């Protein structure tokens, strides 16, 4: 059978049924008509077989086959159980005579000879069918029957008169008679066979046990039931056989493990087992009975049985809509079990000799079993069992990978393997494998192909970790073969990285897998994510990775014209920087200096240089840290009209209102920033100092940490009190104490000014004193009379009050009223 010409009917026909042989002797042309009727009846009507007075759980259909009588068809003690199917179940002698005399003269001696042969052997079922249709009248017919009954007086139950074709009842009685004899023989041979199998099974732990004899007997036993239409029962026998052999393999390491296992191991694989090549093989030969051969044979039989069952169900009325996919999955599952069992056998028995051949067999078994499934339905779009399909493709890739590694280690094996692959019948798979075995380049190509198919099916089955593993294996092989790297096959998406635990072992694995990719010039977001993830896994310990990350971020930042947001390349949702703001004076006056002490805990694991840290306060009435963090915050609203209170989601509120643009120079934004030469991993204490230059009510909205290449914004700020800032403008007071005093012109007098600071003034403050009229002059520190005086005051503490003495005099000029030599003048002071 060829893989291209595979079809369900062809596969189904590859099973050759064991017929129920009925031998016939004597001459009767009309009996041949009955033969067809009997064959048709027994093959179509499922019959209940009673064994030990209990009905067999499955109904049998008997495929009858009529053959001329031969001595070798007779049952006897010399017949071994496996030959039971080759002997006749029933022997029939046909008598067709015109009269009793005709019988006596022409037939009787033949019947006697035939009977003598049969009678010499025990446990033989026979019948004599008499055709009296040629007799002239009823009387002659009765005479013929009387004569024959007289001759076989002891066996009258075995004498049948051939019924008239029009007499249905007579035909049914005739059929039932034959059925009874067939079942009697079947019961007899099955009892013998059961006993023999039981005996062999009991000896299974003995060193001299012959696994092949038991295997062939069991498979033949199952095939008999399969021939009789009890496919489920035959399947269960094959399953039991598989389990039995596998059980021994699993226990091969135990001390009492039988020696025949080692003999099984010693059977060399000289043939080239495959599914397509072995479908037509009905019985396995002893030289093919190595473990691989036996499992391959069982798989072939299983597949054909599955197709028979499928066809049987399709014809029935209760066929499920998913019948095709159910049987396709069943075949895939069976193929997978077989492949894994063979792999386990080689592992446990330490069978290194057969590994290359097993790998080749696995490779084409997967392809062939999938081709067969493809006859039932499209397996690539099968959503029922994506895992099984993925495992099959994985087994195929693994097989090729192991084969490639093995051939690299032992190149001398390739010629031997090449010869083995040339064993006929040559299939497409064996040709492809042969060329791969002979050329490393071809092997790399085949591995890439197998990899691609496997990756698609693994992704379909959500086995993303396996995808990485096989890509790793492929790359390791290509690396060692100095082959060209298909870097595009390595897709390290963020979603894939998210499935990995952030730990050192992951980093090690990724570095091993992506070593070429990491060396490339790529600055895609995926690349940055990968580098950043590796760095995070190792907690920034690999300086080379950190350097690469910063270099690539720098390039990307240049390309994009702004720093890269760490959140966009981070895999984990965890905060990279935890910010803790310590308590600060919430109410600030303009001109005062605000100090905020913060603790930034960097989880980056590596140092950042020239870092700008900004505390962004917002005066937007809807702004809050909770909202930025998308936390659910409720706010109490009071409706004046209705005089009721409502709890309203802050998030909702914000969504309802229009977003105000956040501009650094906007009156609604207050940014406090500082620059650090280095931001180390772990905790960093930072002191922010700034002048209060704006008036308003601000709440801390976010903290922004940035360098030239990267930036990060967080709203996750820990504070003991709400991080709110109220900047108010409370003027300091400057009072002229002796304002009420009269100043005399031409006389130097003392002016007393009280200055009171309402809040801390941490720096020197200028005090400017200017007269309201130009006639006043003040004595400066350099003892010069000046028109306006500037004094520098030392820093003030909150609520500190100082009195300042200033010398002042009023010029005498003609504009002054004579009578009023003394003038009262006001002095304005400006602080």
């Amino acid at each position, binding site marked *: 059978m060829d893989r291209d010409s595979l079809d369900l009917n062809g596969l189904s026909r590859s099973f050759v049924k064991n017929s129920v042989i009925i031998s016939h002797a004597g001459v009767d042309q009309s009996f041949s008509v009955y033969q067809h009727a009997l064959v048709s009846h027994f093959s179509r009507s499922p019959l209940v077989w009673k064994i030990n007075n209990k009905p067999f759980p499955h109904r049998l259909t008997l495929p009858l086959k009529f053959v001329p009588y031969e001595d070798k068809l007779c049952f006897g003690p010399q017949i071994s159980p496996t030959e039971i199917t080759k002997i006749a179940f029933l022997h029939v002698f046909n008598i067709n005579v015109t009269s009793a005399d005709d019988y006596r003269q022409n037939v009787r001696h033949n019947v006697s000879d035939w009977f003598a042969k049969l009678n010499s052997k025990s446990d033989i079922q026979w019948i004599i069918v008499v055709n009296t249709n040629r007799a002239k009248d009823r009387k002659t017919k009765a005479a013929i029957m009387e004569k024959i009954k007289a001759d076989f007086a002891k066996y009258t139950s075995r004498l049948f008169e051939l019924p008239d074709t029009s007499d249905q009842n007579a035909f049914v009685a005739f059929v039932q008679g034959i059925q009874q004899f067939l079942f009697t023989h079947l019961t007899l041979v099955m009892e013998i066979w059961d006993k023999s199998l039981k005996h062999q099974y009991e000896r299974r732990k003995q060193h001299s046990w012959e696994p092949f004899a038991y295997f062939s007997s069991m498979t033949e036993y199952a095939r008999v039931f399969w021939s009789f239409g009890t496919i489920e029962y035959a399947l269960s026998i094959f399953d039991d056989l598989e389990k039995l052999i596998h059980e021994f393999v699993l226990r091969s390491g135990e001390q009492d493990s039988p020696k025949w296992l080692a003999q099984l191991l010693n059977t060399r694989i000289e043939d080239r087992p495959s599914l397509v090549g072995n479908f037509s093989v009905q019985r396995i030969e002893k030289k093919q009975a190595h473990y691989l051969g036996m499992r391959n044979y069982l798989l072939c039989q299983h597949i054909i049985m599955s197709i028979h069952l499928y066809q049987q169900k399709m014809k029935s009325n209760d066929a499920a809509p998913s019948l095709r996919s159910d049987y396709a999955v069943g075949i895939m599952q069976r193929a997978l079990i077989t492949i894994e069992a063979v792999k386990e056998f080689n592992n446990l028995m330490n069978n290194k000799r057969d590994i290359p051949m097993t790998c080749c067999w696995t490779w084409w078994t997967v392809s062939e079993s999938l081709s067969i499934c493809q006859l039932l339905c499209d397996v690539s779009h099968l959503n029922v069992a994506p895992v099984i399909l993925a495992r099959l493709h994985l087994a195929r890739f693994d097989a090729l990978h192991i084969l490639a590694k093995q051939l690299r280690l032992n190149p001398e094996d390739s010629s031997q393997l090449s010869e083995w692959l040339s064993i006929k019948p040559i299939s497409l798979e064996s040709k492809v494998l042969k060329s791969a075995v002979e050329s490393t380049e071809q092997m790399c190509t085949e591995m890439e192909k197998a990899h691609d198919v496997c990756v698609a099916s693994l992704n379909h089955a959500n086995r993303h970790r396996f995808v990485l*593993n096989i890509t790793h294996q492929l790359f390791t092989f290509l690396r060692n073969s100095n082959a060209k790297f298909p870097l595009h096959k390595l897709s390290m998406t963020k979603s894939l990285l998210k499935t990995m635990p952030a730990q050192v072992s992951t980093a090690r694995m990724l570095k091993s897998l992506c070593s070429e990719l990491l060396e490339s010039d790529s600055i895609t977001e995926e690349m940055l994510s990968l580098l950043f993830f590796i760095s995070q896994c190792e907690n920034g310990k690999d300086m080379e990775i950190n350097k690469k990350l910063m270099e690539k971020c720098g390039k990307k930042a240049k390309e994009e014209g702004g720093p890269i947001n760490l959140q966009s390349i981070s895999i984990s949702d965890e905060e990279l920087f935890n910010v803790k703001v310590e308590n600060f004076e919430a109410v600030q006056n303009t001109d005062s200096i605000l100090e905020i002490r913060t603790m930034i805990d960097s989880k980056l694991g590596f140092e950042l240089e020239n870092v700008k840290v900004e505390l962004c306060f917002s005066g937007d009435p809807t702004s809050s840290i909770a909202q930025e963090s998308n936390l659910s915050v409720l706010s109490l609203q009071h409706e004046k009209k209705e005089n009721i209170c409502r709890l309203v989601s802050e998030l909702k509120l914000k969504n309802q209102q229009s977003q105000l643009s956040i501009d650094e120079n906007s009156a609604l934004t207050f940014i406090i920033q500082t620059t650090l030469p280095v931001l180390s991993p772990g905790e960093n204490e930072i002191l922010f100092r700034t002048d209060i230059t704006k008036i308003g009510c601000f709440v801390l909205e976010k903290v922004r940490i940035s360098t030239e290449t990267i930036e990060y914004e967080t709203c996750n700020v820990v504070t003991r009190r709400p991080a709110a800032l109220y900047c108010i403008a409370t003027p300091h007071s400057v009072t002229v104490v002796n304002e009420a005093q009269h100043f005399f012109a031409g006389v130097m007098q003392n002016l007393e000014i009280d200055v009171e600071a309402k809040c801390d003034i941490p720096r020197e403050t200028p005090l400017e004193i200017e007269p309201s009229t130009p006639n006043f002059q003040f004595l400066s520190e350099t003892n010069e009379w000046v028109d306006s005086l500037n004094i520098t005051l030392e820093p003030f503490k909150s609520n500190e009050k100082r009195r300042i003495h200033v010398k002042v005099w009023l010029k005498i000029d003609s504009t002054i009223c004579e009578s009023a030599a003394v003038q009262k003048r006001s002095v304005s002071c400006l602080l």
Partner: protein
Amino acid sequence: MLGVVGFFIYARENVRLFDSINPQYNQQTLDIEIFTFCSLDIVDEKSAKATEMFLGQLYTDQKWKSFGYITNTGVRMILVLDATSPASLKDQEIRLIFKRFHGYYCNTISNPFYQIGTPMQSKWLDEGIRDLYSSNN
């Protein structure tokens, strides 16, 4: 030698909490870790429909085979065995190993200073694992 290669504990989100590799296999740590990493895919698959804590055999390749166990709180335990070891452990023996391993884990998390979900460093656990290696070798 029954070939116990290593024990691994993962949190519900597959973050590794504990790992121990039999010193005999120290040369193949990366291989073992990649193998265990792959096994997590099958733990994810099996845990959704697990009816008991023992998840059975997870994955096998030419060198290793892994078995899984999931606690009621979703903590995953993986046992890696040498697939080429001549004597294989029976299902019942593997269940027993997991039961003991689970016991050591419970003792470790009973430490009031241990923070759930963080990597485990415990003298008790280390000693327990050493005991498991020695009793199965």
